[in-house]
């Protein structure tokens, strides 16, 4: 039985116009990501990975081409519908966590449910607690965000991305602000969530973190130059062991 397509793009292009100069950030990107995948998108800065993430995340619209997200034709949506799609279908994780300061972990995780317009979530507090349990922060529910470590803050952000049970979890450099040990913990958390069936797309420029994913897409100058299944996936134990090896010049 073929899996459901979560993301499907056809000839996706994005051109930024700055006066006379046209910048082709994305050119003819064809991509299909199915339910249950864990995809790492890599590329140098300027390769178009951020632009791709913004379009996938419904924060930006393509100049041309087609984008379907979980059977929704995103091209045709207006601003408010885009906001609703972001609210219902996507869980965002950012490099710098983007949590509300001086606010408890629980209140942060509840945030997406505040903007829900479908009325499907009745007990927001319970759902937020469950999400925090999933990321291993059951004992930090009432801690304020500024009382948590970087790794813990990113876990709160992941819980926030999980709480509305989205079709897609979108992570933008999730380990960019973390030390190596915490980075490995977060990557391992993604693997666990993926094992439970979550579809995850992660942008990163750290190869050792990308190695945790099932599939890797490499972008250069706005085009996909490689798209392959990762054969030797990294594990937490392996990555921690690698950390202890002396650096050879």
């Amino acid at each position, binding site marked *: 039985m073929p899996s459901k397509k979560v993301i499907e793009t056809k000839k996706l292009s994005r051109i930024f116009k700055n006066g006379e100069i046209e910048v082709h950030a994305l050119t003819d990107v064809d991509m299909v990501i199915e339910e249950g995948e864990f995809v790492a998108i890599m590329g140098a800065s300027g390769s178009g990975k951020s632009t791709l993430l*913004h379009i996938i*995340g419904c*924060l*930006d619209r393509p100049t041309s081409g087609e984008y379907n997200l979980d059977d929704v034709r995103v091209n045709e949506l207006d*601003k*408010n519908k885009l*906001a*609703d799609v*972001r*609210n*219902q279908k996507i*869980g*965002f994780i*950012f490099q*710098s966590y*983007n949590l*509300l*300061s*001086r*606010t408890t972990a629980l*209140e942060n995780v509840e*945030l*997406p449910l*505040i*903007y*829900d*317009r479908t009325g499907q979530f009745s007990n927001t507090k319970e759902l937020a607690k469950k999400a925090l349990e999933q990321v291993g922060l059951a004992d930090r529910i009432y801690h304020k965000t500024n009382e948590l470590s970087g790794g813990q803050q990113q876990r709160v952000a992941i819980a*926030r991305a999980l709480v509305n049970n989205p079709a897609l979890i979108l992570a933008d450099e999730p380990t960019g602000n973390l030390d190596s040990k915490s980075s490995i913990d977060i990557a391992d958390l993604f693997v666990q969530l993926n094992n439970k069936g979550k579809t995850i797309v992660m942008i990163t420029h750290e190869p050792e973190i990308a190695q945790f994913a099932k599939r890797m897409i490499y972008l250069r100058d706005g085009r996909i130059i490689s798209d392959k299944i990762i054969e030797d996936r990294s594990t937490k134990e392996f990555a921690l062991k690698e950390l202890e090896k002396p650096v050879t010049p």
Partner: protein
Amino acid sequence: MKRFLKIFKVAFQSINKNRTRSLLTMLGIIIGVGAVIMTISAGEGATLQVQNQISGLGTNLLMIQTKSEHKAGINVRMGRPIDKKDFDMLQKNSVWMPQLSPLVAIGAQAIGPNGYMSTTVYGVSYDYFYITSREIELGSFFTEEDVKTAKKYCVIGETIREELFPGQDPVGRQIRIDKVPFTVVGLLKEEGTGGMGQDMDDIVVAPYTTIQNRLFGHQRGYNLIMASALSEDHIADAKIEATELLRESHKIKAGDEDDFEITTQIELQEITGNITGILTILLGAVASISLIVGGIGIMNIMLVSVTERTREIGTRLAIGARESDILTQFLIEAIVLSLVGGLLGIVFGIIGNQIIYKATDFFIPTAVYSILIGFGFSALVGVAFGYFPARKAAKLNPIDALRYE
């Protein structure tokens, strides 16, 4: 509705997170609303006091005097003075004015056994006490007979008694007014400050005949004739009657202007009411400027807050907030700030009124409409000055907002 409540909660949380800043922001509104309430109430209090004192004089009062005009800042009499002929004629012919009294006034020195003071001596007839509804505290008024025979009797006010007979009963004692000895026959009941701020008890009242004979040495005109109408309903009748009688006796041709002026108590109340009303509006307007300044303060802080929270706004947009949600949140924040400020301002204004009352004995009734104006104005300020920053927040591009450092 539930979602709105949640957004309301979000707005409240962020106000609570920045407590010091929120309070300082509110300060402008607190002072503004407080000032509006205090100034409007003070104006109302002044009006009330003036009106009370004027009606205390007797609402049926009419004052007939020679027409005067302001010339180079001085009152210049334009016609012939009102005199005994006018008085007798009015007393004989008037139907609507049962009480009439001449009034001659002179500034003089009153000397008693224990002191002296400069005061105003009013020469009047017996009817004066009835017209002005003054009451006696000790002794009695002088009589109609005393006026006829120009007895050297007088009735004094409380302020005079305090100076001339401190702690003593003045009845039967002698005072000298410009070297003429008068016997004090009565002490007037205390009345306090008058409608124009004058001391109503700094007064010596004597028969006008005595004043004219002994102090003036002549019997020319009066300062004015005081009269009281039959009832409040007949003040207009009385005025018309007096006008007709005086025009006839002064032989003024039809079409020519009067050479006298008749002022009624009601006109006096209207005039002072107008003056204090204008004053209240003026003071209120000045006070509401501080409210607008307070509003600008709120706008300022909200703009800073929007810039400071650009990342937060970006995050909210990314996780599914619509523009309208962000607009609502920031608008509610501004409105809550100004409404809470408004409420505190009302409390501040009421307490301020009480403090002024306690400190100066000047009663300020906190006008209910001033509270409504203050509160309404602060809500309006919140919406007006909150909208611009809120719109700015809502229109942020989520991608740029997320990247904002």
